[in-house]
């Protein structure tokens, strides 16, 4: 079972690396949907460990697929379609860091996550390869920092949330159902609200050019 979790964890890490590689926003959204499905598989496997006690995890897996895997990507995709004439061509055009550089930095972060986990938490938690969710978290924060396009930043945040689900399930055996459900509802609200904000923001930038920088300083 542990090995399956490791494979899923590394799959998520690879997905995040591919998000760093990809510059087209729509494909990054698809990659996020794929990684949400991986999270759902992970939750099902977690539930199968003790099927009698943890049947709520199946509900949670279903909720994950519906919200993270389908609704959120569809909402973001719709917003892209409303904003741009050719949504499949929308891409990150002024990254703060080149693609190669951000991939290498992301590798360094995975290594850092491993060393921190191994030196501080491993002796208490005793979970083999528990550093994978931490690595995923650090990678997602890099995804936010290294991109300027709002949708990609949003995806970075969502990947971070996925990392937390992975962390809680893998290392600590899951959060209470009511908290997880609240988290998912919050996520949904956040995505809807921020899609609206991003749409307004992007259309303003498309019309007037980027003028906000100078006033929000200091």
């Amino acid at each position, binding site marked *: 079972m542990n090995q399956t979790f490791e494979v899923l964890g590394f799959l998520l890490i690879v997905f995040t690396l591919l998000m760093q590689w990809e510059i087209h926003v729509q494909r990054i959204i698809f990659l996020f949907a794929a990684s949400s499905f991986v999270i759902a598989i992970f939750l099902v496997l977690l539930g199968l460990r003790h099927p009698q006690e943890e049947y709520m995890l199946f509900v949670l897996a279903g909720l994950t697929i519906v919200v993270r895997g389908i609704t959120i990507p569809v909402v973001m995709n719709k917003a892209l379609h409303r904003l741009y004439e050719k949504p499949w061509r929308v891409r990150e055009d002024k990254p703060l860091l080149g693609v190669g550089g951000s991939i290498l930095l992301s590798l360094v972060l995975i290594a850092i996550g491993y060393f921190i986990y191994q030196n501080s938490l491993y002796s208490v938690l005793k979970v083999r390869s528990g550093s994978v969710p931490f690595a995923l978290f650090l990678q997602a924060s890099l995804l936010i920092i290294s991109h300027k396009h709002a949708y990609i930043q949003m995806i970075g945040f969502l990947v971070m949330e996925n990392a937390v689900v992975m962390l809680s399930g893998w290392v600590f055996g899951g959060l209470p159902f009511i908290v997880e459900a609240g988290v998912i509802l*919050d996520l949904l609200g956040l995505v809807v609200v921020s899609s609206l904000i991003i749409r*307004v923001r992007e259309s303003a930038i498309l019309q007037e050019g980027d003028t906000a920088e100078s006033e929000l300083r200091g």
Partner: protein
Amino acid sequence: MSQHIIYLLPIFFSLLGAILSILPIRYIDRTMSVVASALALVSAIYLLFQPVCIDGYFYIDGLSKLLILTIAMVYISTVLYSLPYIKHLGNLLFQHRLYYFLLNVFVATMFFSVSVDNLGLIWVGIEATTVSSALLIATKNNQITVESAWRYVIIVSTGLVISLIAITFIYGSAGTLSLHELLQHHPDNRVFLIGILLGVVGFGTKAGIFPMHTWLPDVHGKAPAPVSAIFSGVLLPVALYAIARLIQIYPAHTIKLFALTLGILTVIAASLMMTVQTNYKRMFAYSSMENMGMILIGFSLGGYGLLGAVIIIISHGLAKSSVFFLTGDVLSRYHTTDIQAVNGLFQRLPRAASTLFLAAMAVTGAPPFALFVGELFIFSALITQFGWLIALVVILFLAIAFIAVNFRTGKMIFTGDENIKKERPHIETWIAIVNLILSFLAILFIPYFELLLKNLL
């Protein structure tokens, strides 16, 4: 459970106000919001006299009650101030009734956050405040407000993910998230300690604590005045409430020292940033940040430091909302947020100008106001626990902040030539005046606060 239903009343009234104000009937949004906020205030006052409620669902002790009361007071003043202000605000992102809907939901989520008995649900509530308040910032639709709303969403949500990790750690090591169970019994290992520390950092993002405070001046500088008021007045303390609970659960020396360091760094960073501001709303935003630093110091010290922190929360919430209402007034007359461009406020609007002067004094901790007493409590605790030197450093930076704010406010109010005509004052200035007076009167209730917080001191 049935007798505990009264503790739900503030949440219930604000949610009811939200649902009713979305209905497509003319003026129903405004009237229902006023009614809901008045009822919430009444029920908050009523709750003060109810016994402490600790069961599996709610954890309402003196701290929660006082926060509910503060939220309710700022809530009603914000709604009343919004009535004329939003009406005159052009180029809105959405309709009026959505504004009132979001405002009511926002307040409901804050009530929820301070009354539930589960760290995870506190997190859910605080994240829900982000969701409901993000659009409020962009009420006035232009590129800058939308940009600041976006920064708010992304920075605060990212910070809150850190506290979600913290909650995972706490649950993983303690096996429960219930506040009263954690308070009775908690594990004493490294995972739990790291969980609490991460929680302080994560919730600190929402409260504008030092390393991740960058969203705060952007939002306060660009949001409409009532939204800035409610953000500064109660949203930041609600996030600090979570930190207070975390420290209360595990009052280890490491955690106290960590929170104290973050608090002092916040005070220092905010004071230094205040000296270079040219935008008065941003300047007052940094002043809020400085006060949050003081509150965090108070929470980290515990005992009378905590009492001082609660006094600051109440008086700062009222005084700072008053300040932001007045800045809205100034903005609507001068159409600029640049300090250099605002001159002769006293000649134009004598009543608003004198209130702003006193309110600026109040938020920077000038003696007759309750904030000063709160700071005194904190300093006495700081000196007994950590000695004179640290206290002197903090006092030095508070003095810098005091001079920076009051010098600029005085410049806005008292410069200007003779021939500026007096204008007809807005009626909503009275809301600011009432809030300022309440903030002053809070000093009379300090013994009562102490009585309410008896279990924490």
